[in-house]
């Protein structure tokens, strides 16, 4: 069955179907449209599963060889989890009658899938930019002023990433004569440019501002899609091009630690999840930097687990936003009474991301940490351990606690729509399923897995870390020392381009105006002084201006003529 579907598509990359069929499917009447949209990721996945494990399809454009499709162990896992994420996202959005969002979300998912199967940098660039262009509509679809502005900022940064990729690809082509997307490294200028392009989308420290800015502005369903694809596509690209690049280790562990401080004090719970997403990307980046088989397996396993529990968390917070109309922690609380299912699924997502035993986070994150330990990276190991305790705060406790428990806000709403609950149930089942039976995930990782997550040492050390961190929360909460949720915004690096640069620019403009005014004032004063001088000495009443006698004038004229005569000889 799957083979015959695969044969139907020839050598076309999986994902292309979603891109092509998205608009027609979205334009159908609502019910048929939803069925078609749900079927597309399933057909796409069947297509991928029907392909051979190693597959290459190239075309010749002028003198360029473009590898449209490259399936191998690395791209395969990303393809599978992206299809699952697309299916869950479409199901979650099935109640919605917004054709713009429906079409753009499928194009976005399809472009991201096709991108991981791109075998050369030019093909990658095309899909890379399409993910940017299609996903911005998921932000604009909120149809608010702030979403419009955030979407514009998002688009500028995403397109910039694409342009860096293109510039790097051209540079690499001119030096090596090949566009193939293999290991790149940082030895050449082109390699550095491409690295920056990937780094923007992977939310490297200080390049991360776009995500915490834009994701929380997207629609309820849009954020679920956004959380899945762009950043993980960047992780894939880094794993392909820069595995074992040492600088990724400090970059990665900074990513795991830096955002969690912001997550503690942020009030918008979808923004908290964006910081949390950034923190999780850090674990993956560390794994890529270490570059051993265990580390890369850990990164890929973590991508798989993360895409699903992060989607689950965004879905549960989306459901709260959809029903309550706000996602600010300061306005929420006690929602478990009216949204028990959503609360339940949210808690599954929370314990998964925290990495409790029997959840997907436990069996994936620990591979990266073990890899760091095995390479004796002391600082990285300690920071990752610290970040693991930190995850428990913002994603494990803060997200479910302040929305569903804490102080009862008195808000009584309907439970999330059935399709949303179904989507959350599937994601929750996968979180637990992967945690209980990790062999299924381990069997599709890029390298053979020789790793046992359920050892005594591992289970108990993780439980000690997490339970005592939870005890820390209880302690702070009981003492009244836990920071209250406050209506506020938290400034981050995006402040630079939202406030500092505009203000610096208006400062420059103001300085220019002040200078201009000072110049004009001085010039005017000079003009008046010259005028005063000339009117004092040259007016008809002054010494020089009064009429002279004829004889005197004639004498001066003669003297002038003599001087002229003398000078001309």
């Amino acid at each position: 069955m799957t083979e015959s579907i695969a044969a139907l598509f020839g050598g076309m990359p999986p994902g292309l179907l979603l891109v092509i069929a998205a608009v027609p499917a979205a334009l159908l009447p609502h019910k048929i449209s939803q069925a078609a949209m749900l079927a597309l990721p399933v057909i796409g996945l069947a297509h991928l599963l029907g392909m051979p494990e190693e597959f290459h399809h190239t075309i010749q454009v002028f003198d360029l060889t473009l590898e449209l499709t490259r399936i191998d162990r690395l791209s395969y896992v990303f393809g599978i989890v992206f299809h699952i994420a697309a299916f869950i996202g479409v199901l979650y959005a099935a109640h919605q009658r917004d054709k713009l969002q429906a079409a753009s979300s499928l194009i976005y998912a399809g472009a991201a899938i096709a991108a991981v199967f791109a075998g050369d940098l030019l093909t990658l660039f095309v899909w890379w930019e399409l993910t940017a262009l299609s996903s911005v509509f998921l932000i604009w679809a909120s149809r608010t002023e702030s979403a419009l502005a955030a979407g514009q900022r998002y688009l500028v940064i995403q397109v910039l990433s694409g342009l860096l990729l293109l510039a790097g690809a051209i540079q690499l082509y001119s030096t090596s004569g090949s566009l193939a997307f293999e290991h790149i490294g940082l030895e050449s200028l082109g390699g550095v440019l491409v690295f920056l392009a990937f780094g923007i989308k992977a939310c490297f420290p200080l390049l991360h501002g776009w995500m915490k800015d834009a994701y929380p502005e997207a629609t309820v369903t849009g954020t679920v899609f956004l959380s899945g694809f762009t950043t993980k596509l960047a992780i894939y690209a880094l794993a392909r091009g820069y595995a074992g690049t040492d600088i990724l280790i400090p970059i990665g562990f900074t990513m795991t630690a830096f955002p969690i401080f912001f997550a503690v004090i942020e009030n918008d719970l979808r923004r908290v999840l964006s910081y949390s997403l950034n923190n999780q990307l850090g674990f993956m980046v560390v794994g890529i930097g270490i570059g051993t088989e265990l580390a890369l397996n850990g990164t890929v396993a973590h991508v798989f687990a993360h895409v699903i529990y992060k989607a689950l968390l965004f879905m549960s917070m989306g459901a709260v936003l959809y029903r309550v109309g706000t996602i600010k922690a300061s306005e929420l609380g006690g929602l478990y009474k009216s949204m028990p299912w959503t609360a339940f699924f949210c808690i599954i997502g929370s314990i998964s991301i925290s990495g409790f035993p029997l959840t997907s986070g436990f069996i994936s994150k620990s591979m990266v940490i073990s890899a760091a330990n095995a390479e004796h990276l002391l600082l990285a190991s300690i920071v990752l351990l610290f970040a693991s305790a930190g995850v428990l705060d913002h994603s494990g406790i803060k997200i479910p606690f302040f929305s569903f428990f804490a102080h009862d806000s008195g808000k009584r709403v309907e439970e999330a729509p059935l399709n949303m609950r179904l989507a959350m149930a599937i994601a929750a089942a996968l979180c637990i399923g992967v945690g209980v039976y990790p062999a299924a995930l381990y069997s599709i990782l890029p390298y053979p897995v020789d790793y046992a997550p359920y050892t005594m040492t591992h289970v108990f050390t993780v439980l000690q870390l997490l339970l005592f961190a939870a005890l820390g929360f209880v302690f702070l909460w009981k003492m009244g020392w836990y920071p209250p949720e406050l209506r506020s915004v938290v400034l981050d690096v995006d402040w630079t381009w939202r406030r500092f640069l505009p203000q610096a620019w208006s400062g420059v403009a103001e300085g220019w105006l002040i200078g201009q005014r000072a110049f004009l004032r001085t010039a005017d004063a000079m003009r008046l002084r010259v005028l005063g001088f000339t009117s004092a000495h040259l007016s008809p009443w002054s010494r020089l201006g009064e009429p002279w006698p004829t004889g005197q004038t004639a004498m001066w004229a003669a003297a002038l003529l003599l001087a002229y005569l003398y000078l001309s000889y």
Partner: protein
Amino acid sequence: MSEDSHPPVDSPQVNEPDYWLDQPKNIDLLIKILIAACVIVVCADFFYHKHGHFGFQEWFAFDAVFGFAAYVGLVNSAKLLRKIVMRDEDYYLPANETEGEGGQHD
């Protein structure tokens, strides 16, 4: 039902059942369970030999102490961070969109 709740008019809470979690004694019970679980996972350290790549990983209850300290340290430093980076909710709003009489910045 908690005393600080202000129910919207269209959702009366008069007929709500008593929720298990609304009773303080049940919260205390949950906390006791957590403390018991903490004691159990620490005591487990007596019963097997820990394998660690670094010496400190084999110390008794290392992860427990580290987890508690990391958590409390993280939350307290984030509270300090608030002093630097926290602004009013309308900070980024253009002047004409400012909600209520809240102060405008710059």
